[in-house]
């Protein structure tokens, strides 16, 4: 009996020790939990803007795996259009575009991460929809990339419209809205193509290249990016049809106007800078420009920045570090990149696109 009793005591002791140890581990927050020390969430009165300033770094949610939008380059730095938006906000708020902590987020966890305060903003290929704006509780800053679902075919196949797809095969990535849009639009066109779904992008494109399917559907930006990697890019065309609207832009959490305003107006600032002809190369000269609009915009006159809770010359820092929208676009997706993607809808309103910034005054 003695043995059983003490055996019990022994295991009880071990267990208590284990519980005590785990409690102690929980009670002492680790050293590196310094991020997010400042007050500031949707529930408290202080804005996330103050939290970011106090912390000295911006926590920005990105995807981390979308060509042209966010990826890690050979030197280990994040690059891409989405990443440049993060950098622009960091430059505006903290004066340094490198003070960004990137957080890679999956499409399932991105909104939880924003509402939980894990990230200050999301810049991750997220389509602006009414339900995300209302029910999910997000606040969408201006669109930085107007995308749409398109269709890539081999030029020799002679396919030109959705109506031509009766009995043809279309490859698509599974589990995305792309798949749903495709069925919808095909039904509307009154044709029934065979749809092949793939879990991942690479095998799907490989199947397309092996001519296992006649068409491939995805967002147009992705189609163009991928076309450049096919063995003979010139044999493939992206059809003119647009099956869905995909306005992609940065977003923040609801009910934090001060912080949302910063993200919104920094994004607008990138567009406005292009319209005013201010680039990363001429921004220093432009500061002494005679044009009152430019003077106000760059903070040489007036106090537009103060109203946002930033320095008046915040746009100078933004443009000198990442450039204006046109430069960002060309660098990541346009002529200076591998993709050579036309501006299309993403041109300024003065050039037939949709980019339009409200006046800075």
């Amino acid at each position, binding site marked *: 009996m003695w*043995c*059983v009793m*003490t*055996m*019990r*005591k*022994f*295991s*009880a002791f*071990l*267990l208590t020790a*284990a519980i005590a140890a785990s409690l102690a581990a929980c009670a002492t*927050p*680790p050293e*590196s*939990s310094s*991020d*997010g*020390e*400042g*007050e*500031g*969430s949707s529930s*408290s009165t202080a804005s996330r803007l103050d939290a970011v300033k106090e912390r000295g770094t911006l926590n920005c949610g990105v995807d*981390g*795996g*979308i*060509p*042209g939008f*966010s*990826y*890690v*380059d*050979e*030197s*280990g*730095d994040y690059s891409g259009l989405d990443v440049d938006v993060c950098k622009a906000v960091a430059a505006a708020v903290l004066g340094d575009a490198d003070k960004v*902590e*990137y*957080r*890679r*987020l*999956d499409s399932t*966890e991105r909104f*939880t*991460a924003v*509402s*939980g*305060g*894990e990230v200050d903003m999301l810049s991750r290929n997220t389509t602006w929809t009414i339900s995300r704006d209302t029910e999910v509780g997000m606040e969408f800053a201006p669109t930085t990339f107007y995308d749409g679902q398109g269709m890539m075919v081999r030029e020799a196949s002679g396919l030109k419209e959705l109506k031509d797809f009766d009995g043809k095969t279309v490859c698509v990535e599974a589990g995305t809205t792309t798949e749903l849009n495709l069925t919808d639009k095909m039904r509307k066109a009154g044709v029934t193509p065979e749809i092949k779904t793939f879990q991942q992008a*690479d095998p799907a*494109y490989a199947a397309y290249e092996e001519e296992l399917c006649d068409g491939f559907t995805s967002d147009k930006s992705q189609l163009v*990016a*991928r076309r*450049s*990697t096919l063995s003979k890019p010139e044999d493939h065309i992206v059809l003119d049809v647009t099956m869905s609207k995909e306005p992609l832009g940065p977003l923040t959490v609801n009910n934090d106007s001060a912080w949302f305003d910063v993200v919104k107006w920094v994004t607008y600032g990138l567009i406005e800078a292009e319209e005013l002809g201010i680039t990363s190369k001429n921004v220093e000269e432009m500061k002494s420009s005679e044009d009152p609009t430019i003077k106000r915009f760059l903070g040489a006159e007036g106090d537009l920045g103060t109203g946002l809770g930033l320095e008046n010359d915040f746009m100078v820092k933004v443009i000198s570090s990442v450039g204006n929208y046109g430069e960002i676009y060309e660098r990541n997706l346009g002529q200076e*990149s*591998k*993709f050579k993607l036309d501006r299309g809808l993403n041109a300024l309103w003065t050039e037939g696109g949709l980019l339009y910034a409200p006046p800075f005054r």
Partner: protein
Amino acid sequence: MTTITPQNPNPNLSPPAEIQISPINWVMKNLLTPWYNALITFIIVGIFCYAGYGFCVWAFTEAQWTVIPANLHLFGAGRYPSEEYWRLWVLLSIIVIFSGISWGIVARNVTHLFSRNVLIGLAIAALISFILPIPLLYKLAIIGLLILLSLAAWGGQKIGAKMPGLGQYIAINWFLVYLIGLWLIGGGLGLEEVTTSKWGGLMLTVLMATISIALCFPIGVIFALGRQSNLPVVKLFSVLYIEIIRGIPLIAILFMGQVMIPLFLPEGMRPDRVLRAIIGLTLFSSAYLAENIRGGLQAIPRGQTEAAKALGLNPPLTVSFIVMPQAIKAVIPAIVGQFISLFQDTTLLSIVGVEEFLGISRSVLANPNFLGRSSEVLLFNALGFWVFCYAMSTGSKYIEKRLNVEH
């Protein structure tokens, strides 16, 4: 004093001479007779040749291996700042030296430390490092590390032969190496600090896996004992823990750790992400490990405990010197299997955005310069994982053999 020379008492009873069969005979005997075996052999060899030929054609003509050397530092250490790489090299050298010394000390009684198999292993490692599409500097570094390993093993054997008591300090030394490693990676105390968000690649995978393995073992032992306890509360708690954790998929635990924990904690309290990952992996693995160890505990005959009691050992001593060693020895294959799967489970963290070995590959593949290179990169990943898992399983075989000898 007469010395007894070991002598075969009856030379006539020596084992029968091994029949030497030539390779051709072996093939004839095992693969080609009777005729249907020959047919099966030819079909299987044909399939292998076809697949192998296809792979070689792909590997040497279609595959573009430049993606590996160009991003090797990313695969190795993620976004770790390049000016601090020297710290990782120092750490790697320390680990290699200690591995060598430990090996030498453990194998101090082996007459030929560098037996044929070991030499072949070293040669293969050197050869692979030369075949791999990596910059020359890395190849030389790997060769250098192999030489360092051999030297340290040789030195370790010499030291171990002089001071046989040294063996028991190996574990403590490894703990120290661990602390030094964390200091070298993370910085502080005179080194520039590198936050965990910059840790990545294979380094992070190995780090998370080893810490989780080291932590989940004692926790698993405690819950295995707890589940066998006669105290109702202790037993209930252990059973609840094990059953609840085993009922949740690992990805759900990791997801909760990375995304949902902040929702429950007050603003400003943000446990480190790598730490959260390690806690998640540890919690998960310890439940499975507890069941493995319980299997071992139940395999120990009651007589062992009773004998220990009869000798006057108290329960803690009984458990730690009589029951536990035998129980663990019985389930080493299962435990190592658990460790290997834990090592591979770290890849799930790439889904929640931790830049470990597989996660960083995803980012590399999104680089416009390397679009569509997923076959090459994933093959490289697979090779990396295989090396570590095979090393673990070899290690477990070695431990099993040793424990059997000492029995």
